């Protein structure tokens, strides 16, 4: 292993340690009260090093949000044409909910909403990471389904928003107001109901 590789590995390890420490501190203290110095200390790096990786506290927070939502949002395995439309939608819904609940995207969302008046830039960035990137992915999947004749031709940007809205209302909206809200035991059945409604309009 060359010196360059070694340096890069050390740098990547530090980057990951900072993200992990920051995630814990932000989830505990919220955004305003979280101290960058404590994050650096918990990650075992200097504040100077931390700022080399993340230019600002906002950037650091945005990186955590992106990290949380990108863990399981890979939808590439949905490309197989043998899968049915309802199965694909089910997979998308479950993936989304795993992100929101298991990787605590709900909690991150709440922190950002609380900050949105004092820190509008942070909120706008998070909104982009949390919703727009995901919607783009969903639109890509829907466009493919339209091309392959499984889904009726439609404004996929709009239909992607509307199905997200239905899922959010049932599972995410209550969680925004109550940190102890967990996924109901009949989550899959509720997802199936949503899919049933969606398919009435869009199944080819």
């Amino acid at each position: 292993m060359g010196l360059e590789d070694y340096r890069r590995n050390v740098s990547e390890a530090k980057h990951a340690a900072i993200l992990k420490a920051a995630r814990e501190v932000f989830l505990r203290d919220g955004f305003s009260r979280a101290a960058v110095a404590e994050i650096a200390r918990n990650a075992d790096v200097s504040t100077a090093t931390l700022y080399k990786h993340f230019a600002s506290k906002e950037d650091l927070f945005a990186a955590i949000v992106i990290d949380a939502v990108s863990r399981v949002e890979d939808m590439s395995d949905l490309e197989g044409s043998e899968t049915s439309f309802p199965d694909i939608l089910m997979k998308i819904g479950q993936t989304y909910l795993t992100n929101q609940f298991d990787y605590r995207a709900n909690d991150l969302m709440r922190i950002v909403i609380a900050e949105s008046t004092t820190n509008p830039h942070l909120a706008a960035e998070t909104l982009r990471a949390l919703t727009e990137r995901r919607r783009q992915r969903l639109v890509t999947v829907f466009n493919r389904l339209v091309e392959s004749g499984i889904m009726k031709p439609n404004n996929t940007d709009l239909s992607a928003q509307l199905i997200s809205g239905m899922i959010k209302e049932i599972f995410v909206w209550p969680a925004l107001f109550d940190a102890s809200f967990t996924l109901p035991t009949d989550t899959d059945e509720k997802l199936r109901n949503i899919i049933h409604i969606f398919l009435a309009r869009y199944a080819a």
Partner: protein
Amino acid sequence: MTIGAEKQPTSDAKRDGIIRAAQALFLRDGFSKAVMADVARNADVSTATLYKYFESKEVLFEAVVLHAAASVQDDFGVVAPGTSARDFFMQALASAHEVQQQAQVTALLRVAIAEVAASPSLPRKVFDTVIGGRYARLQAALDEMVGRGLLKPHDTAFGARIGMGMIKELFIWPALFVPDFKLPPDAVARADEAINIYLAAYGA
């Protein structure tokens, strides 16, 4: 006229004054930092009078949110005689759009969400009374339309929630993150698709 009824107008003016003052302070300071003594001073009443109307800051906050929501949507959920399901939904949509335009409701919900960690009972109560109240009104309207044969029999409690979810996705979610969010000019036209989805699934 009884003495009680005679006193009513002054009392209501006081109550309105308190609610106006409280709304301004909650929006400026958030819930935790807002001080009851300031509310009383700004409303030009004694703290004793304030507590006669609202026994706690929590109760006051709830009243403020209910007042903001009610001021723009008194007719929400009323099914006019001879109306079609589509007409009803379009009217409900216009009402939701008005709430969005007014912006205070969204801002107050943001204040409630910011309290999830510090005073969890507040956001929970806001959810139950304010949001739960709107679900109930929409559900009652859906039941009424099922009764009149305008919609197929269906799970109207679930329907009320997913219906609101679709509209919230378009009108409210972005505004939660971006306080000065401006709806695109075609927002209401886009929301028509939510009605199409609902009617495709449950239209009679």
